[in-house]
């Protein structure tokens, strides 16, 4: 069913509810559901029901539709965020951070000149995230809220100390991306909370890298993800470090021992060796992409390589 014409008019400020049966001609079955497209984030929050898991928010729908087609998710109602206020679709360069609206698509970020200048590692990560069709519609808010441990961005954003602004029935709050993901596809969001904004701090001395390690085809889910952010002192030692592993753990996990080794140290071969060995102490999960024992060896090697790469990467540009 098409959207009635008058619905698109700018004078329509209030949410309208419309029922829409979605049929995918002969394809995998998707049960009919109600689709609501509110025009304001606050209205979207109001349409969610913290006590009813069959009411779901929908952003780019790339993961959601796969789950619905597979029959693992059968929502009664989807609250689409595609028509909420334009500010949630904008990328802004603030003095000390990049602010991303939750409805910014991954392709928008990938192609953003301000993001590329300030946070080149984010753009490079996006180039190998899923594929161009997915990146064109998937949104940063939905991506993070999905909380699949194989995803690339959570690990990197944790390493970059990114934070979130969350709107919910109980009001607005902030939390770190590191606090968002609490387990395998589990988040700290309440049933009526939505990610509204993502803030990624910018530091003149910070260099970051993300390594996606796939073991089957290049477009496979990673067997292992490693994100590293280093704040470098002028003397070539590391002032601060974030080291996060993903895909081989049930959620992105900071490697505190490795961070402790790196902080204050010069990144030389001896340190890289010790850091790789320390990383390999982390308990990992084996899956179709590789056994736990193999992933441990991948982590040992790729952590070393990622650290070396981060230490030699140019710092982010500070021009605004």
């Amino acid at each position, binding site marked *: 069913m098409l959207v009635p014409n008058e619905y698109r008019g700018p004078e329509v400020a209030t949410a309208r509810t419309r029922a829409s049966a979605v049929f995918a001609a*002969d394809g995998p*079955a998707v049960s009919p559901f109600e689709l609501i497209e509110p025009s304001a984030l606050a209205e979207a929050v109001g349409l969610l029901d913290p006590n009813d898991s069959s009411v779901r928010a929908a952003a780019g729908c790339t993961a959601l539709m796969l789950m619905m087609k597979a029959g693992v998710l059968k929502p009664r109602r989807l609250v689409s965020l595609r028509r909420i206020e334009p500010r949630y679709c904008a990328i802004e360069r603030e003095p000390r951070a990049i602010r991303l609206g939750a409805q910014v698509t991954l392709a928008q970020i990938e192609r953003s000149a301000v993001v590329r200048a300030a946070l080149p590692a984010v753009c490079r990560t996006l180039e190998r995230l899923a594929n161009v069709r997915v990146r064109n519609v998937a949104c940063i808010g939905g991506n993070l809220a999905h909380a699949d441990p194989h995803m690339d961005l959570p690990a990197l954003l944790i390493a970059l100390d990114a934070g979130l602004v969350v709107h919910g029935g109980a009001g607005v709050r902030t939390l770190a991306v590191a606090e968002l993901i609490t387990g395998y596809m589990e988040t700290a969001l309440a049933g009526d909370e939505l990610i509204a904004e993502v803030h990624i701090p910018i530091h003149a001395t910070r260099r970051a890298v993300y390594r996606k390690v796939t073991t089957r085809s290049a477009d496979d889910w990673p067997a292992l993800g490693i994100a590293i952010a280093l704040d470098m002192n002028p003397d070539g030692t590391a002032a601060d470090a974030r080291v996060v592993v993903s895909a081989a753990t049930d959620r992105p996990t900071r490697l505190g021992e490795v961070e402790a080794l790196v902080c204050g140290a010069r990144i030389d071969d001896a340190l890289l060796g010790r850091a790789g060995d320390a990383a390999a102490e982390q308990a990992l999960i084996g899956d179709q992409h590789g056994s736990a024992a193999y992933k441990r060896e991948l982590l040992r090697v790729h952590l070393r390589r990622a650290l070396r790469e981060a230490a030699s990467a140019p710092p982010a540009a500070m021009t605004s």
Partner: protein
Amino acid sequence: MSAPRDSEPQIGRSVLRKEARAKLTGRAPYVHNLVLPGMLYGKLARSPVAHGRIRHIDTAAARDHPGVHRVLTGEDMRALIPDPHYGPAFHDQPILALDKVRYAGEPVALVLAADPHVAEAAAQSIEVEYDELPAVYDEVEAMTSKAVVHETLKPAGTFPDLKHLAGKRDTNIALDFHLRRGDVAAAFGRAAHVFEHTFKTQQVLHVPLEPFVTVAEPGDGRLTIHTASQSPSFVRSEIARLLGWAENRVRVQVPFLGGGFGAKLYIKLEALVAAAALIVRCPVKVAASMEEQFYTLTKHAATLRIKSGVDANGRIIARACEVWWNGGAYADIGPRITQKSGFTAPGPYDIDNVAVDSYALYTNLPPAGALRGFGIPQLVWAYESHADMIARAIGMDPLEFRRKNILREGRPQATGTVMRDAALGEVLERLAQRMRWNEPFDRGSAALRRGRGIAIGFKASISPTTSVAIVTVNADASCTLLCGTVDMGQGSDTAMAQIVGEVLGVAAEQVSVVHPDTDVTPYDMATLGSRSTYHMGNAVRRAAEDARDKLLALAAELGLAPETTPIPDLFRHKYGMQAGNVIGMGSFVPAYTPTDHASGQSDNVTPFWMVGATGVEVVVDTETGHFEVTRLVNVADCGEAINPALVATQLSGGAIMQLGFSTSEQMLFRDGQVTNASLAEYKIPGMLDMPARIENEAVAGNERGGPFGAKGVGESGTFGVSPAIANAIEDAVGVRLSALPLTAEAVYRALRAKRGEPLEDA
């Protein structure tokens, strides 16, 4: 010829694919797009159990589901068709499970509804009670397993090359093929070196991007089947057989296919959809999901043991091969694979003393059938890995070892059939030249080691099979070809039009091709095994020649000059206006001598030989085992290339497909259930996995029996890929892998084992 000859010859021209524009603009017809008035959609309920007796099927909830039209089970099929089993080799596969299920994913019930989502939801509410039976999954265990998949075996008797099929009662052996030539035991006794190695291949599948789909439309005492099938003639005769109808009451129409690769052969959804449509008396459509492809047809996993005796000069004097093919729960065309591939198991080498034992086995896994190469890639994986292992062991260059042993023109192959028009030596030499084999090679650095490898394989064509074609010349000199070959992406429409054009002196662009419609297009055995260019190509050539002869006779009858009178003038003179047709007919079936059941010997085992070789260069990361194929070179003998551009894409397409089977594709199972039945977890190669350099070459060849010297090329690119990669990995880092897929973890584990520091299992 009566028409002024088009200036350009049509053979050897890279004519643009006839369907390219329609496909690129989204206008090409597919069964998936077909919607008929009053059509019901069917969704299947499938067994979660790998082997079990059906105690009870409860369809009440599904029947009561709002919107459900009808729920059908195997007993409904039995009420319509007394023996509702089908199959090309054995009539072993029930339309819906009867009495027992033999693999997890087997169809048990069909729900019909006007809305496919209703049908899907209702199918999930069907409850089946099973008495589980012991199951067998491994092909070698299946040889002696107490778990027997089929209690009785019913040979189909359809195809002349499978007439002897009997199966072995109370075993899982559907077919055993044996070949004996010379005195193997004596030759092993006098060999300077004897080598024995065992290789394994994994179960994979075709994953055409268009999954299986069939629509059946009942009519007045007739039935029309629209289906994505590679074998419309077989569908017609098999459906007619099941129903006890004359063949002309069944009409099978096939538009374009979104890929086939051997999956869409024989009967897949057609019997189910046909029976359902006849029961409910309205059109029925069943469209499989991508996941359901994993439960329909796969490629044989195999275990291959190969033993060779080599003399002091590096000549192979004896070879014994044992091959166990994991056919899954239903034989499909596995017995033919066992036989055809069985007799080439010793490889393209000149060996006087040969023994082959090849077994088609039933197991409780999804059925296996033909997949681009018909068993040959599994065999080449074994004998070309084995070749490099021997060469290394005796200190001979792998190319030199192959040169010394390669089967030359005029020499007998293991069956005793003398090799003719098979450019094995030339293909090997061209590959060596392209690889610059005799020049120094950059070995890379400490962490990133480089290596290269080659492999060569060959394949006998299917025989004896029939193709029939009709060429209609219209009064304006345009031509229409009626041809049962299915264009599933390989470009057969274009190649066949070129053959017509060459004979009649018109441009291929002027020849239209009518797609398979069994009411209109004549018989063709099937589009499989790279047979179409040779078999249908010969029939098309004969049909065009018949039309040409009739045009010449018409000119003579009218007293017109046959060489200079334009074709339209012939018709105007004959009929007084632009009217009438000339219709040419051609048919082709090659000569064939069946292999002797005891010795596997035949003086004419194939109408032609396909030859394909691949060379690769790899870079291996010694710290992780990750490797990359940086260069992929495919060389083949396809006789005369009718369309060089299509030949190149067939070679690269086959090689890339095999690259996936070599490195990333693998069906994973737990208790017989597929655990990665989706493209998210079953990884086919993507664009980023393409080697940076891919080269394809067809050597100058000529197949005397082929149309204008041509023969098939659809599978040749697959033959050598897997062993060439394994050989290159050993060349780079000194470890040998003997099981597919060649994963980074397998390379890493082998490197650790070589260092004496094996990685623990978990």
